[in-house]
């Protein structure tokens, strides 16, 4: 039964990948590009050269960090979508600190910037957590609204206090060299930042946090059954707040990574570039598994980087990559539904029973019409 489940799951995942490829191929044919050419461009643009592989891996880091934040909050039974705002908040604070770090030794600057990023994101998420815990405002609503606020604040800060480019562009001054995160020097273009170690380290840290610490245990109990948590002396609100704030820290660190390990050494208003929501997709694609999210983050990053490469080499619109990402998300959701219907774990059976009345409405209506 278990192994059958596993096989089914793998089959579905392979199916999703194939379907995504098919969708991509169809799109390419539709706009008049030969799929083999596209594939070649895609490959060389993502993993074909060390330089490009470095870019792909480095860009996977922020995606994974956001995904890990999402995984933690869902495990605690909360659901927020404030990652874009938290990335902006973390990135802005990291910029403010980073710009002052010119005279500090490199390692100190890197750590300070990372802390600033984490702090900014956590603070921003703290607003959401506070509104939920003390005012009962649903975290999904407040986080969504705070995203809009964060966008405005970031817009304003690169035009106001952080503005520093000489030609008056809405962007900060160039970061001092000491503040930039180190990268592997042997790779041409130095595209591979050392922060890629965060990929395995953070994923494993989250796994251990959830399975091996008392904090993670409380988090899972609170997320698994609020009422039972309360009855066993765990405050589900406290755990929920902690999870939201930590996820904000992850997103804030992602913001710092986007800026200080990114391609441009300054902050502009659009630096978030959709990472906040794509990170959620990365987690969903990995079925909320931290280790799986490492792989899906790299896949997502490759879709981004490869899309840009195809655009440059074949004149394919770069929105193709976005379309492909969208297709993958939809397919994953479909796969989740398929799996849910197939595997009859008791929880699935029970929720099916709970939904029974609703389900009957439709099926009944259909059959009686037929």
């Amino acid at each position: 039964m278990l192994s059958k489940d596993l096989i089914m799951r793998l089959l579905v995942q392979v199916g999703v990948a194939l379907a995504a490829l098919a969708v991509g191929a169809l799109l390419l044919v539709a706009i008049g590009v030969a799929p083999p050419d596209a594939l070649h461009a895609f490959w060389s643009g993502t993993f074909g050269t060390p330089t490009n592989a470095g870019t792909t891996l480095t860009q996977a880091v922020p995606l994974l960090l956001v995904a890990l934040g999402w995984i933690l909050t869902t495990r605690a039974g909360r659901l927020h979508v404030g990652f874009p705002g938290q990335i902006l908040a973390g990135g802005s604070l990291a910029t403010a600190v980073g710009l002052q770090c010119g005279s500090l030794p490199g390692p100190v600057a890197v750590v300070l910037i990372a802390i600033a990023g984490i702090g900014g994101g956590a603070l921003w998420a703290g607003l959401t957590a506070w509104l939920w815990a003390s005012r009962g405002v649903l975290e999904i609503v407040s986080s969504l609204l705070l995203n809009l606020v964060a966008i405005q604040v970031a817009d304003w800060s690169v035009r106001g206090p952080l503005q520093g480019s000489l030609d008056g562009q809405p962007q900060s001054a160039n970061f001092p060299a000491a503040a930039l995160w180190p990268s592997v020097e042997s790779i041409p273009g130095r595209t591979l930042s050392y922060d890629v170690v965060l990929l395995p380290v953070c994923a494993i840290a989250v796994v251990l946090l959830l399975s091996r610490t008392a904090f993670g245990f409380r988090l899972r109990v609170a997320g698994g059954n609020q009422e039972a948590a309360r009855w066993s002396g765990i405050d589900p609100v406290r755990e929920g707040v902690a999870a939201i704030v930590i996820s904000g820290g992850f997103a804030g660190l992602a913001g710092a990574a986007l800026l200080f390990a990114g391609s441009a050494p300054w902050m502009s208003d659009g630096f978030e570039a959709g990472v906040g929501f794509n990170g959620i997709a990365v987690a969903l694609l990995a079925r909320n598994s931290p280790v799986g999210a490492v792989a899906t983050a790299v896949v997502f990053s490759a879709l981004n980087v490869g899309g840009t490469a195809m655009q440059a080499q074949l004149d394919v619109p770069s929105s193709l990559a976005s379309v492909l990402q969208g297709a993958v998300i939809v397919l994953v959701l479909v796969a989740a539904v398929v799996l849910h219907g197939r595997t009859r774990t008791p929880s699935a059976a029970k929720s099916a029973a709970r939904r029974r009345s609703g389900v009957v409405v439709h099926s009944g209506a259909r059959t009686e019409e037929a």
Partner: protein
Amino acid sequence: MKTRPDSGPARRGTGTGASALRLTGVTKRFGSFVANDAVDLDIAWGEIHALLGENGAGKTTLMRIVTGLYTPDEGGIELDGEPVRFRKPEHALRAGIGMVHQHFTLVPTLTELENLAIAPAAVPWRNGLTEARRRSQEVATATGLRITPDRLVADASVGERQRLEIVKLLCRGARILIFDEPSAALSPGEWDELANLMRRLAADGHAVILISHKLSEVFSVADRYTVLRRGAVSGSGTIAEATPDHLVTLMVGDRMADRPPLPAGTPGPAVLTIRSLDVARDDNQPAGPKALQGIDLEVRRGEILGIAGVAGSGQSELVEVLMGIRPALSGAIELAGRPFTHRSPRRFFRAGGAVIPEDRHHAAIVPGMTLWENITLRSLRSAPLNRQGLLDVRAASAEARRLMNEFDVRADSENLPIGRLSGGNQQKAVLARELSGNPALLIAAQPVRGLDVRAADFVYRSLVAHRERGGAVLLISMDLDEVISMSDRIAVLAHGRIQGVVEAAKATRANLGALMTSSGEAL
């Protein structure tokens, strides 16, 4: 829809005695574990058929197969003599097989009639209410089952909700009704009503399947029985020719020794003292009606204090106040010799409390987490299993295995999600968790509900052993016989007041019953 073209209410009442549902050689495996082993089951129209067996014998699994939630690995199902195969609950329901769920599937914010109308409508845009009203009137004339159409479900009692659940199934054409431990949520009075109802359904030609661990219930309503043991049928026959002893032997494999009378205890100083406790029924309306009024109670070391009373007399409020989940209006509580004023579940446990909550499913287990995590739900969070925030996972699961052994929790592995265990085994796991810490005070709300005879006996002996070690037990039960046989003293709770405290030796159903209906001057 291919399953049973001729099904529906039109066939209701077709003769009695003819086979309604026949299972032959039904086998269901979960991995290598055989939950149902070549089960034959024969249910006739017009009968109430009791399905009996120990916790984990496979009763619920079998009924999940019958209602299409699981598909059998082997064997066949015949309905009215024709083979059927259900792949979804809807198929079974359309064929006329309905399950009365424990966790009701009603929407509390809608009226009873509106809840009925959440049923198949012929066309989506037609108002289902008139149809539902017509159907429910048909059901009322056929079976005498009446609903209160315009009452909100939220205002209905548990018994009334259960009746609505039954009417809902009947309205959809159910002819075979399955009750899985229906009395677990009911007071004895409500059970009597339900028993009448089942008889009426059977007299009307329906087939009723009843799963119950209470032999008194089985003997009062059932016509025939089938006993499962470790997944296989160990016996079947007519109730009229059976004795309780015989059924118990079929269930557990040998005779059960009679429960020895509670040996006299030697109570020590008070562990829990409650003085003039007042509690509002609604937390947000302190001036509103009271759930508890002027409660004075004392539970001493080495004593089991039973609280007797019908459901809704204030028992759950009392437990919640003691735990610190619900605030009190006034009054003083002392726990383990210290004032227990700033109450919270954490402080309750730290002061040496433990609790077996009444609502096991919602308050006691995390269904998605493993059995070992649930068993160590509290001990895992403190030393020695928790060292500076790091968990000793291996020691914890070893501890869980030890407790599973000691408390006879039957499961393939401690790594199974607890939601997959049978109801009774989930409960034994909760018991293991709460008793393992050797608490000063154990609050046990309906501790044997859903347990088979042997497990109930085991709980009884565990509570007595706990008492012998000097522990105190606050036992809450709606079953008078259970309270009388398991307590040293009995406090009768009615309408939120303690109507009197009686030594168990002097307690009888009659004098407790009299206290329950008295107006409150008894103290």
